[in-house]
């Protein structure tokens, strides 16, 4: 007992629960998976050989890389100017635009994919409109092809590109650009020689983020693409469903992982070389992925703050060009991007109120029938209830375990801290299908396949990582002398925690819990692998319906999911803004 207490006192002891869950559910199975792919105990590369000698496999592999690269490229081409225009906009406009980018980021990916099915389908919004206008005789093939895959993927990934770019650009000191201008650099030269190089870290982290996410993409390509547009993850998932030849699955999973790691290190090293960075760029990029979550807080706390940086970047690009065209073009561009990001959601929300037997746009009459059907149908509201239950339990488990771990990490030296953090967050940095397969293997060993407990554990490994990142960021700002101060006033360890530490890190804990809940509530890939036949979560039910497209109730569900981010934004805003406002309020409050 006393040795147990001592363990709790040591920094590493606090991380034990997190690592125990991680190891059993994910770590050991990942190693097993690797051994299986190598035909252990014989150890050979025959599985890899077999994979690469099948032309179909190689084609899928190259296709995966190609689709990911193209999607990343489009995100960058669209995202960079968008981010630039957001940064150069006036304060209120910039805040609005950032919020408009965050809303889709917080919206269920499934709901957004569903929106594109509704828009691009043969009987979808666009075809119906064109048919109705008599412009075409038969539906255009807008869906189930590569183009649709790109539209859907870029739609989902764009916020992940724009947000890191915006934060990198906002961090650029305007005096650099002003200095360049003062030295006679024209607006374009100043941009090319000063602004652009300084924004490169944002370009890198955004691109890597998007690329690695794309590699693991599963649902969107499967839902919007044709049969020939399979990604490696689709291929792996299909193998799980049909044959279940574990060595083939393991091999494909590790090839996918290897591609992710190789490309990451190549891009990371290359760019860092030009900047002469000494720090390990790969590790940075892994972490960069999570900085979005961290930065969310930053974006939201921007809202009430007076605008400090002047519109320097706008001057940068206005000065010298007498014409107003660039400005007009810029505005049109931003409007188009925002329409692209938000319109699909709006269409689904509007359609969900259709009165007819099918979904129509625009609806011929309004009714709440699909909402009634959602709340009345046990299979729907049951699934929703299951998801809420799982989500809440995941949030509780991972907030407790993740917070303990974050505390332990905060007391370690910087070296071991970043190493262990990197390990704890692997489940959110690996392609999701790989995590799914490994977890599947782990839960088989535990006999938890098809149980709610199994799903909670499977979701928690990723959620713990998210909580660790958010709480760590909060703890980094937490002044440890406050703890010493409390102790010097005779507050014991528990009193210190309850009266000082907890109240101060509470926003971080709630933020972590909300993101943990979100992670679980929207999870479909891992769940579909480990859920068996008995547990039906809302995302699984939606997925099934998207494939069959029989029940328009899904539109009501998707609409509800679209409205959810507004709730989250309000939660975060209240959470972070209030604490900020409290601290910044300079009005003297009269003594009680």
């Amino acid at each position: 007992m006393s040795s147990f207490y001592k363990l709790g006192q040591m920094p590493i002891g606090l991380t034990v629960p997190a690592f125990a869950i991680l190891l059993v559910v994910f770590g050991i199975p990942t190693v097993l998976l690797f051994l299986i792919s190598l035909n252990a105990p014989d150890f050979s590369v025959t599985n890899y050989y077999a994979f690469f000698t099948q032309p179909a496999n190689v084609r899928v592999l190259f296709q995966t890389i190609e689709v990911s690269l193209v999607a990343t490229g489009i995100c960058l081409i669209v995202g960079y100017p968008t981010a630039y225009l957001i940064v150069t906009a006036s304060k209120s406009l910039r805040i609005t635009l950032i919020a408009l980018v965050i809303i889709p980021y917080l919206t269920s990916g499934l709901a957004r994919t569903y929106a594109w099915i509704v828009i691009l389908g043969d009987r979808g919004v666009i075809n119906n409109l064109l048919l109705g206008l008599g412009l075409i005789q038969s539906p255009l093939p807008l869906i189930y092809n590569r183009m649709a895959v790109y539209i859907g993927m870029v739609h989902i990934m764009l916020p992940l590109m724009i947000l890191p770019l915006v934060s990198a650009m906002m961090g650029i000191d305007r005096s650099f650009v002003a200095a360049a201008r003062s030295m006679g650099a024209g607006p374009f030269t100043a941009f090319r020689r000063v602004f652009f190089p300084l924004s490169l870290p944002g370009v890198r982290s955004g691109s890597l983020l998007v690329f690695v996410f794309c590699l693991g993409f599963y649902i969107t390509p499967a839902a919007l693409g044709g049969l020939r547009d399979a990604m490696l993850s689709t291929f792996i998932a299909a193998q799980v469903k049909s044959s279940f030849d574990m060595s083939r699955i393991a091999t494909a999973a590790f090839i996918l992982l290897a591609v992710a790691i190789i490309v990451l290190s190549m891009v990371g090293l290359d760019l860092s070389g030009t900047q002469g960075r000494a720090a390990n760029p790969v590790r940075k990029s892994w972490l960069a992925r999570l900085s979005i979550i961290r930065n969310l807080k930053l974006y939201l706390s921007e809202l009430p703050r007076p605008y400090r940086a002047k519109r320097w970047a706008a001057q940068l690009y206005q000065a010298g060009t007498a014409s107003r065209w660039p400005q007009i073009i810029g505005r049109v561009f931003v409007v188009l991007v925002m329409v692209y990001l938000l319109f699909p959601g709006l269409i689904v929300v509007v359609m969900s109120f259709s009165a007819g037997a099918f979904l129509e746009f625009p609806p011929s009459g309004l009714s709440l029938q699909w909402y009634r059907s959602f709340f009345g149908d046990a299979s729907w509201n049951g699934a929703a209830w299951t998801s809420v239950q799982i989500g809440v339990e995941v949030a509780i488990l991972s907030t407790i375990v993740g917070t303990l771990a974050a505390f332990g990490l905060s007391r370690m030296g910087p070296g071991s801290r970043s190493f262990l953090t990197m390990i704890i967050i692997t489940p959110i940095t690996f392609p999701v299908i790989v995590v799914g397969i490994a977890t599947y293997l782990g839960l088989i060993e535990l006999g938890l396949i098809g149980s709610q407990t199994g799903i909670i554990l499977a979701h928690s490994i990723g959620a713990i990582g998210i909580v660790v990142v958010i709480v760590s960021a909060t703890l980094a700002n937490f002044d440890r002398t406050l703890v010493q101060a409390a102790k010097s006033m005779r507050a014991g360890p528990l009193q210190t925690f309850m009266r000082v530490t907890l109240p101060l890190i509470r926003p971080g804990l709630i933020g972590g819990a909300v993101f943990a809940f979100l992670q679980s509530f929207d999870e479909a890939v891992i769940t579909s692998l480990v859920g068996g036949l008995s547990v039906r979560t809302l995302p699984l039910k939606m997925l099934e319906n998207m494939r069959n497209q029989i029940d328009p109730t899904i539109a009501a569900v998707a609409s509800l999911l679209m409205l959810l981010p507004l709730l989250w934004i309000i939660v975060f805003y209240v959470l972070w803004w209030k604490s900020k406002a409290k601290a910044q309020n300079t009005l003297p409050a009269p003594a009680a």
Partner: protein
Amino acid sequence: MNMHARTPLPLPEDELLHEKRVLPQIEFRGVSKMYGKVPAVRDLSLTVRRGEFLTILGPSGSGKTTTLMLLAGFEAPSAGDILIAGQSVAAVPSYRRDQGIVFQSYALFPHLTVAGNLEFPLEMRGVNAADRKIRVGRMLERVHLRDFGGRMPSQLSGGQQQRVALARALIADPPFLLLDEPLGALDRNLREQMQIEMKSLHKEFGITTVCVTHDQEEALTLSDRIVVMRSGRIEQIDTPEALYDRPATCFVAKFLGEANILEEPDFRIEFDSAQPSGTVGMIRPERIRIVAPKESKRSDADRRQSVTGTVDDMIYAGPLRKYHVRVGGTVLIVREHVAAGQPTFRPGDEVRLDWLRSDVRFVAA
């Protein structure tokens, strides 16, 4: 007129506040602290007397904060022992000790109001709500922050925050007070004002105080005694006057004020007493007289040593004039008060310097 403010409210817990406390003596016995292989404090032995204001002074990294943290119980000594009132406290966690601490950053709880901050130590000691309110009110009055109880710490100025931190450390009437660079974050004016304030608080509460600083002026103003530290060791302990007037080492001489070191071959020191081995002569700049070379000798010339040199530089510093005078290979600093009719020397001028031989101190090199 002060009477009114100082009259204590007739309340039972008043006894608690003004009760004659047994102030403990604090003793360090051969205390060392290693951070890994780095020694932060080495074999430190020191007694803090009852009720005194002791300042630990030293350059950055000399182990001041570490010494304070050891005393506060936030760090455990690697060797040696610390005794408070004769009891070893090495194994007593900080939250079981009775002490008030003012942190360099003040460490005011940002989520509690000023009153909430002041109540905290009372609450932890089980004082009931009604008594807490009264004591907080009185304390706020004492530090001139009567109307600030409802404010958040972030709504206070630096000096106000400092006073809240001090009030919070004193409110539970601890037997001793630890201060880590208490005025470090304040600007010069405020600093002087707070020094006076702290001095009067110390007198009023009669509390044993250990203060850490690297500001020599602060140390000279506030302290009964000063401990000068250098790379983890104690260099000298003494009263401010004694430290300034009779520094034991060259380091102390230079750390507290300015010092001229008189060494061969430029100076053959003519002395009254025998120069101890391993020492050098030291004279403070204000003890040196600067005159034109031709000026007639004074009556006490036989008790003075005199040299000639060239003015290198002259700096006006308010009522003072500071000269750098080159004598052979050495530059001596000379400081004199500006008086009417006194000549001003320019760089390049030949001058004569002289000083009383009894003003030369021998300090360990």
